[in-house]
């Protein structure tokens, strides 16, 4: 492997054309939709992004207090609260709750955190059927695949591949019409809901003030999972807490628009506790498991800002590296720019295994600019790169970025480059102003240069 080629590049090179095309066309639509929606509704959404970032940062830095508050509120509402240190603990707790209730059939709505702890396999091994109900996740499950995007798990598949899977799994003859596929899934999964005896969800947010768990879906699958059976288990990362109900408004407005260009996701559930006494459908028991699994270590690190993430997927969509590789290139549950920071950190002692991921970035700054909670992802990537260097971890492909960094940190040089920046959108690779980038860019593409934000970031960085 040549010096500036990383494992992710090899993955990208070998990625079938069909997959790359599927990813690319999907992310392009999402990028355009997100931008249009935010601009139409807010003009410049920057003030809101910064505010949301500050609220989340504050919460993280007071997480000890907010966790206590959230727990107390949930208990008051009649929910049961558990804490799990590791993935293994969480899996065991889920199984124990199911066993206590004699539950053998679980319907699950999309949740990255259950992916993170590899819950499905574990439950299956222990005699519990666990069915994914989000259409994309369901397809992932029958294909024994893994999601390649936080919001759109099957972004790497086209309709023909989905139709083949349906045929193979006895869900009807080959038909690649998305509507037919969706109706078949509706029918199949409806039976699963009605036979289920427990529903599992994650949570997008938890209000410490009221204990309300917020769960959003477009398909209505989380709602169905919480209407068709009597037991609700929510597995929630400890970083999902926000201070007040008021803040839910802030985050919901940003999440829908950033993830799917919607003002609000179709079904936004505010769940305080078990169903009310008069309600004939839904869980009589609600269990919330707060999961650490490495998060407290991330909280202790200088890269704690990454825990602000609300999993909107916007940074994946704009990332030139993600676009070439899909999420699978990152070899971890969380891919894209957020994953390049989070996955090595969550890996704990296995950090060296993922130490190359922070290098899978052109540091173009696009991820920071779209992030609804304003996470300085490029800065965090640089920190992790230097951590890998300090720890003497050898992994392939660190592009020699020093001249680029010099350019970026010198206001005068940078301003000059900025003036010429529009031209960079049209420059052939060989004319890129920074030498090492030329070689590196042969196998990558930069997103359209928009400038400005990145410079501010570098300036702030210089101050710290």
């Amino acid at each position: 492997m040549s010096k500036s080629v990383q494992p992710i590049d090899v993955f990208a090179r070998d990625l079938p054309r069909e997959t790359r095309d599927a990813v690319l066309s999907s992310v392009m639509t999402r990028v355009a939709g997100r931008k249009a929606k935010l601009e139409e509704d807010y003009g410049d959404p920057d003030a809101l992004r910064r505010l949301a970032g500050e609220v989340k940062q504050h919460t993280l830095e007071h997480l000890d207090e907010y966790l206590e508050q959230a727990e107390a509120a949930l208990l008051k509402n009649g929910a049961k609260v558990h804490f799990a240190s590791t993935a293994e603990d969480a899996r065991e707790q889920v199984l124990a709750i199911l066993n206590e209730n004699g539950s053998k059939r679980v319907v699950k709505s999309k949740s990255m955190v259950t992916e993170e702890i590899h819950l499905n396999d574990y439950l299956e091994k222990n005699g519990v059927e666990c069915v994914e109900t989000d259409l994309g996740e369901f397809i992932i499950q029958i294909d024994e695949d893994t999601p390649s995007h936080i919001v759109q798990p099957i972004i790497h598949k086209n309709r023909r591949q989905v139709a083949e899977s349906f045929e193979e799994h006895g869900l009807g003859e080959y038909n690649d019409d998305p509507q037919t596929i969706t109706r078949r899934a509706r029918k199949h999964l409806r039976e699963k809901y009605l036979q289920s005896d427990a529903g599992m969800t994650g949570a997008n947010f938890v209000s410490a003030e009221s204990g309300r768990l917020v769960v959003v879906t477009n398909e209505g699958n989380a709602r169905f999972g919480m209407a068709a059976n009597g037991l609700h288990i929510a597995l929630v990362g400890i970083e999902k807490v926000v201070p007040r109900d008021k803040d839910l408004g802030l985050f919901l407005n940003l999440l829908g628009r950033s993830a799917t260009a919607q003002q609000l996701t179709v079904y936004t559930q505010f769940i305080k506790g078990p169903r009310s006494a008069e309600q004939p459908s839904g869980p009589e028991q609600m269990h919330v498991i707060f999961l650490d699994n490495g998060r407290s270590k991330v909280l202790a690190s200088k890269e704690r800002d990454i825990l602000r993430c609300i999993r909107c997927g916007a940074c994946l969509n704009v990332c030139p590296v993600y676009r070439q590789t899909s999420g699978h290139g990152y070899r971890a549950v969380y891919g894209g720019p957020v994953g390049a920071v989070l996955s090595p950190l969550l890996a704990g002692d296995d950090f060296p295994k993922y130490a190359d991921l922070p290098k899978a970035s052109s540091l173009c700054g696009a991820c920071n600019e779209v992030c609804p909670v304003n996470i300085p992802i490029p800065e965090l990537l640089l920190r992790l790169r230097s951590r890998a260097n300090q720890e003497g971890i050898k992994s392939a492909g660190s592009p020699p970025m020093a001249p680029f960094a010099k350019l970026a940190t010198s206001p005068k040089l940078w301003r000059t480059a900025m003036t010429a920046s529009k031209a960079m959108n049209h420059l052939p690779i060989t004319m890129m102003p920074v030498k090492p980038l030329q070689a590196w860019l042969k196998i990558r593409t930069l997103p359209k240069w928009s400038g400005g934000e990145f410079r501010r970031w570098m300036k702030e960085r210089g101050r710290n």
Partner: protein
Amino acid sequence: MKNDEDTVKLAVKEALLGLGERAVLPEYDSALLLSARHKGSEQDGWTEFAENFSAVSGKPMQEVTDLVEFLKEGGFGKGYCDPELKQAVGEVLVEAGLQVSYEFDHQRVDDYVFGITKASGVIAESGTVILNDEDTVDRLAALAPWVHVAVLTDQKKVFANIPQAIENLGGSSNVIWVTGPSKTADIEGILIEGVHGPGVQICLRIGEGK
């Protein structure tokens, strides 16, 4: 069951020990969150709701006769109606020749093509219907049928915007905001309506003070 409460809480406490000054909670006016499209008091709340609800493929209605016509035209011949809406809605449908049941049988949820239940409010700014556990006679009745009709009877429950609706979440253990029919774009980004929940979402406004 093993509960790691102390371990997790201690780990979080310790993680924060080294922090110097901790970030303060910024105070902000929720007016910041309002969409530039939001008309606020310039327009009556229902009209704004109706526009925004239509924009997300919802169907706003103000007359039971419109509902009758829609159900008949669509061939949605039988369904369920909350007994409390029997007089105002159910009987009108029956008179028009539609089959209406006032009991929702969990054993045959797929037999109901439409489900008529009460709305707990609407949000004008986002075109959202609010349902809560107290007003929704049965969660499944509002979810399983292909057509869901949420009936708004209390005109005071037209909330101007999202912050106002959040302030009024109330004590219900379960509140759900429904902004259009159930949908997905999982396959090649192509929009399909009616995944697990209703493919048609109606909001019917009836009663005094419309």
